[in-house]
């Protein structure tokens, strides 16, 4: 599913954000990647999304080798995963329904399929009745659920969440986490990147901790492996 082999990412002029990272995440895992700011979490995320290319080593995600992938294949790779951001990244002038439909439309899916799938996904995230609302008319938790619904439209094998609870209050954070857990229970791999250790301890099967671009601990992996 996700494989990092000796991955190093250096930014110009001379800042190493990720150093010699080795990591394997299996299908169906629920993994938290934690660390303070500057630990290299964002770079790890960008490497998985192929927003950045590894300076050294090999990154494999969903069967794509991201070190060798051709520019034109990147969009197709991204369709195999769903991403959720801290700031939701919803389009403000589109309704919840339209925001989700947008993600399908721009990947060439026809209207019939969109009409069938969007209400289904809205139902999964518990927003069946709020499809017609604009993001500004929704609470932070609801907005994040719309973003999550959007991440799920392509029926991805992997969902990556970047600080998904960072902008919402604690009670609602739990709702989002429950939702991610439910998604994980259907066999989808979930990777949550966060600085909230407490949340991680409560939900994760596996916690990977990063510090200064290096993995310092990896606990709870399948087979009880501890580095």
């Amino acid at each position: 599913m996700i494989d990092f082999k000796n991955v190093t990412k250096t930014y110009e002029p001379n800042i190493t954000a990720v150093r010699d990272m080795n990591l394997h995440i299996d299908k169906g895992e629920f993994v938290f990647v934690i660390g303070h700011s500057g630990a290299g979490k964002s770079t790890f995320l960008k490497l998985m999304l192929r927003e950045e290319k590894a300076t050294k080593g090999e990154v494999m995600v969903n069967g794509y080798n991201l070190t060798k992938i051709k520019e034109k294949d990147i969009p197709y790779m991204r369709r195999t995963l769903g991403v959720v951001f801290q700031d939701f990244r919803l389009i403000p002038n589109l309704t919840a329904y339209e925001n989700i439909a947008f993600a399908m439309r721009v990947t060439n899916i026809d209207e019939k399929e969109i009409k069938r799938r969007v209400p289904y996904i809205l139902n999964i995230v518990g927003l069946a009745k709020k499809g017609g609302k604009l993001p500004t008319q929704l609470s932070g938790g609801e907005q994040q659920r719309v973003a999550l619904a959007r991440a799920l439209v392509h029926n991805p094998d992997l969902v990556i969440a970047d600080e998904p609870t960072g902008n919402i209050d604690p009670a609602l954070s739990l709702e989002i986490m429950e939702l991610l857990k439910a998604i994980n229970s259907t066999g989808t791999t979930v990777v949550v990147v966060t600085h909230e250790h407490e949340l991680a301890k409560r939900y994760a099967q596996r916690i990977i901790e990063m510090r200064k671009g290096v993995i310092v601990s990896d606990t709870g992996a399948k087979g009880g492996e501890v580095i």
Partner: protein
Amino acid sequence: MKFSSFKYLFRQGLHNFVGNRLMSVASVGVVTSCLILVGVCVSLALNVNSFVEYLGAQNEVIIYIKDDAARESIDAMDEKLKSDADVSEYTFVSKERALEEQMSYMGQYASILSSYQGENNPLPASYRVHLKDLTRLEQVSLRFSQMDGVDYVSTPTELAGVLITLKNVTYYAGFAVLAVLMLVSMVVISNTIRLTVFARRREISIMKYVGATNGFIQLPFVVEGLIIGTVSALITFIAISAGYIYLYSYITTQASGFIAMLGTCMIPYTSLRFVMGIGFLLFGWIIGGVGSAISMRKYLKV
């Protein structure tokens, strides 16, 4: 690409054009101005060309024949001119015909020349030759002067030189103006679209994350550019057509003197409109398409 996607992209492009209306109007304005200048330059160049060709056709090379030339030499000349690839047409002017012409120029004073008729006629017989290509004037004249029985060849070299220069200047100047205006229009369109792209950078980044291809992301902006180009081309076509038709009818019916003479070789609107319409549209599309592609590049790197 599916039809529904195509419809979506087209709608988005139109939406950008309308949503960004102030800038759209501004860029249509600038592009139209450029296109009008292009239209004026091109129609001017085409007409100068037509005028030069007309003047060129009026220019004759005159081959004066020696008075004592044998009948055979004159016949041989005739044969040579007939088969010469550079000659478009020629006429033989006998000594008698030359005198008649001279007398008709003199009008009421023609009788002065009456004593030169017959044996006393000092005017030589000649061939008046029109050439196909004025640039070959000198070589051809030289060839003529080497024919048997030729006294001398009169060549309008200077005038031909002026005409050729005029033709070249219009050609190169027209081309330079066209290139500059094309560049200006492209920059203007690309700036307008850059504003739309900037306003929608959030959407673009979301599109990238959900796996939209670069082509798909770019298309609405290219459509926006093409719309600007098309609207400008249409306005220009109407404006230039109206102007040309008015000028043509004025010059061919009401003008006098030199301007009226220009009218005889002015290209009629009907033979220009097709080329003009297609030309403007192509120009508009090229700058619209290229302009929007330029402005997109930076934002596709996510």
